[in-house]
């Protein structure tokens, strides 16, 4: 009995997965537990295990193809089995038209596919062909639109005229159309040669970033409060740890620790909006934004309020490393109650961050600046760092956010108080 292998749900937010690599070919024997493929999810590249022994009878998507959750990726069974019913079920799960519409050729494959108007999947099908209507192909060729970049709204994901026109109007302002005359070219004006723009396929990660952050920014009423923190004491503490105990910690570690302590004192900040209730989290799990080439990841440090600086520092380094190698396990990216994003190392003085749902707040950390400060009536050199808290006004009000920031400043300015 042949068995379908479907795209598994490998993370909470995953809606589709991209086949990063096939480890098997059609005809290969597999035993239970074999890793048959690697799938790139919105978060990480994960292994797909096979649970039944047998022979790989069919591999549906090619490497690089996106498959929605539950979509057929392979069939395992015994050599010679008829798997056409499994494949057919997949191609048109919607009911075919029961009225005697016309004709005998209603049952041909093409029209059967036609009868599944809701099946909209990624344009690239199992055979690697892009399905597009002749008209869509012609318009795409005329206007220089790459069909690879378009997802089809027709049956079986077929790209139709409407899809090309939508895609074209979205990109026409930035794309150079082949064959179009350079608008500024004239015999007298200095000519600028146009360099071709390129269209970049949206990665899984970018799709998720786009979706989640748009949702957050457009749904959560953000407000921002910035506070300037005197870093003199923190710098001294860090130097002492290094010189006397040979312990290396970063300023970010200090901010993380101070935030954890402040969060445990201000529960409203460490909370989530649930629609008709607000969860004030008992634990303090802080997500750290880590920039990687393809985008951004947010590994989560757990129970930070109960951990010391050394442990925080080493765990952060480890998680950041895993993030850069895209080896984070889904559970290492889930369950945050607060997020910290630090662009200080780039010299950014201050910035506002978008809240990382379901958190109520995110802290944006700027660079430590040398500034003239007035001490005892004299201008002396000082060290300052600005942090900006973005808050979801549904949960947090301005005064609550200000109280949290004051606690945070006081902790960083008096590192010893974190021990209390």
């Amino acid at each position: 009995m042949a068995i379908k292998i479907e795209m598994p749900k490998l993370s909470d937010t995953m809606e589709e997965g991209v086949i990063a690599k096939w480890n098997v070919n059609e005809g290969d024997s597999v035993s239970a537990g074999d890793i048959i493929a690697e799938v790139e999810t919105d978060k990480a590249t994960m292994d797909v295990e096979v649970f039944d022994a047998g022979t790989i009878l069919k591999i549906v998507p090619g490497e690089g193809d996106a498959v929605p959750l539950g979509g057929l990726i392979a069939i395992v069974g015994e050599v010679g089995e008829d798997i056409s019913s499994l494949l057919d079920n997949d191609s048109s799960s919607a009911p075919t038209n029961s009225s005697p519409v016309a004709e005998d050729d209603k049952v041909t494959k093409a029209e059967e596919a036609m009868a599944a108007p809701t099946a909209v999947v990624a344009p690239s099908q199992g055979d690697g062909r892009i399905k597009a209507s002749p008209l869509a192909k012609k318009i795409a060729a005329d206007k220089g639109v790459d069909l690879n970049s378009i997802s089809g709204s027709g049956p079986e994901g077929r790209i139709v005229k409407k899809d090309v026109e939508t895609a074209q109007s979205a990109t026409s302002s930035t794309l150079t159309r082949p064959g179009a005359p350079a608008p500024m070219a004239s015999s007298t004006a200095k000519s600028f040669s146009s360099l071709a723009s390129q269209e970049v396929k949206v990665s899984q990660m970018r799709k998720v970033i786009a979706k989640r952050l748009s949702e957050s920014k457009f749904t959560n009423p953000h407000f921002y409060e910035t506070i300037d923190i005197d870093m003199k004491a923190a710098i001294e503490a860090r130097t002492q740890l290094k010189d006397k105990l040979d312990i290396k910690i970063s300023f970010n570690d200090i901010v993380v620790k101070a935030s954890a302590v402040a969060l445990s004192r201000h529960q409203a900040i460490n909370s989530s909006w649930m629609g008709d209730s607000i969860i004030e989290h008992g634990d303090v799990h802080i997500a750290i934004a880590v920039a990687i080439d393809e985008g951004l990841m947010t590994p989560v440090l757990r129970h930070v309020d109960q951990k010391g600086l050394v442990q925080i520092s080493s765990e952060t380094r480890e998680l950041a490393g895993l993030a850069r190698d895209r080896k984070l396990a889904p559970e290492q990216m889930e369950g945050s109650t607060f997020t910290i994003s630090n662009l200080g190392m780039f010299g950014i003085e201050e910035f506002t961050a978008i809240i990382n749902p379901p958190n109520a707040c995110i802290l944006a950390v700027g660079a430590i600046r040398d500034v003239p400060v007035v001490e005892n009536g004299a201008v002396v050199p000082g060290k300052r760092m600005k942090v900006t808290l973005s808050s979801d006004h549904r949960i947090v009000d301005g005064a609550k956010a200000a109280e949290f920031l004051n606690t945070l400043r006081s902790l960083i300015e008096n590192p010893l108080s974190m021990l209390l």
Partner: protein
Amino acid sequence: MAVLQFREALKHAIDEEMSRDERVFVMGEEVAEYNGAYKVTEGLLDKYGYRRVIDTPISELGFAGLGVGAAMNGLRPIVEFMTFNFAVLAADQIINHATKVKYMTGGQADCPIVFRGPNASAGQLGATHSVAYDSMYAHFPGLKVIYVSEPNDAKGLMKSAIRDENPVLFMESEQMYGLKGEVSDEEDFIIPIGKGKIKREGSDVTLVAHGKMYHLAVQAANELAKDGIECEIIDPRTVKPLDLELILKSVKKTNRCIVIDEAHPFAGFAAEIGFLIQREAFDYLDAPVLRVCLPDVNAPFSKPLFDAWLPSPKQIIDAVKQVSY
């Protein structure tokens, strides 16, 4: 404009041509004394006499042959079949003689004859009396095939058919003889053979429908308009020669086409139009060309089966919705 029944429009056309040209005569079963099985020739016997309005025995092959011979010898016969389902008996005269004589004589003999009568089904008449023959005859070189849907077209095209120098099959429907419609009262009103007509303008999908099917297409289009889908209906009126240009122009506008045909699917009118569209307008298609036609099954007698067998507005609506994405 006068409002006439389909049968009256045909009679006016025949009457006008008979009075214009004394070579024109009518021949068939019950056309004279009985005034026509469907009263298309009503009053013609009184007006033109037995010499030009001739009752025949029930012998389709015989009187069709008589007609072909008369046409070759300079007359312009209108041969009525009580239905084209009976003309199968005369198929040898139509296919092997009328259509080929000019070709085989190197142009020495013409055959200007009109074979006319109702075509296709007309309710529960059983398998042998329910066949649409327009596709089949259109298969043969040398024949013109007309299957009209409205009184005005019937009049204008009947006059063209009678004047044509070639054999013309003119198809009607028992179910349309009573249909009323405005008919041009322009003197000597002629519609040229081979010219279709856009009978409803729309931007979303092209429906090609002729004969009785045209009226189903109109019903479907009215329903679909309620859902915001605007159908363009083209009535080709002439099956052969086909006004392909008109169809292509519409398909290039709507990018979608459904052909509605009362014939069986295999090698039928709808199949031919589908082929021509993909060849001539491939780059303009945003969806496959679909057809609504009979199944590959003979006409059932049972009422429920017959209703399921015959194309319906519902089937047209379903087909349009299938390609509307």
